[in-house]
């Protein structure tokens, strides 16, 4: 089994790239792989507490929580990107990490594959 690091910089609402990243992560974890998911830029809104599940807007938190509970999935928000958007640690869902950008590069160091999904 391997490890993949995914970086996703796109918004939860207004883009389907986070949807892709989570579905890919779910498939990878179910196959026994490890996944590190780094959220930067607008991607950091995925970790915001208090999201509502409306049908016209993407909602991924249920799958994200299942992934976190699998023990094979680490998800980390870029601290500066989140803070700039008013999302502090206290506003971030439990189970999400918060770190500086070097976390992504450290994960890249030890991973087998990188899938970097830049912003739109």
């Amino acid at each position, binding site marked *: 089994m*391997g490890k*993949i690091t995914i970086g996703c910089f796109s918004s939860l609402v207004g883009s*389907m*790239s986070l949807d*892709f990243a989570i*579905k*890919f992560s*779910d*498939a*990878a974890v*179910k*196959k026994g*792989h490890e996944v590190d998911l780094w959220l930067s830029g607008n991607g950091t809104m995925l970790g915001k507490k208090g999201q509502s599940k409306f049908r016209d807007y993407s909602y991924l938190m249920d799958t994200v929580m299942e992934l976190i509970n699998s023990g094979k999935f680490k998800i980390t928000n870029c601290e500066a990107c989140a803070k700039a958007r008013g999302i502090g640690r206290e506003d971030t869902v439990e189970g999400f990490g918060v770190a500086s950008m070097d976390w992504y590069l450290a994960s890249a160091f030890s991973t*087998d*594959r*990188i*899938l*970097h*999904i*830049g912003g739109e």
Partner: protein
Amino acid sequence: MRLAVFVSEYREPEMLERLKAEKLGIVLVQNGVYHAALKKDGNVSPVLSKDVEYYALSEDLQSRGFSDSDVVDSKIKVINYDGLVDLIFNDYEKTIWL
């Protein structure tokens, strides 16, 4: 290198012409699946003109009103997320998302 290039938009990415690899795979995802499923003015997309491996993500085809059998060229392999995970771990070593 063995390079998988994700094409996520329905336009021809400029970089696609430039990227070279011993083994190159083009993975059509999100709006990129329109390249796999549509002809425009009777012509297949120029994205399909390379002598490389082609894949299209089944879930993204279906979400846009196509079925897996709608792909315009038999060289395009339709895969799901499970297949995509295997592809990335087994067949390619680097990825680029366009």
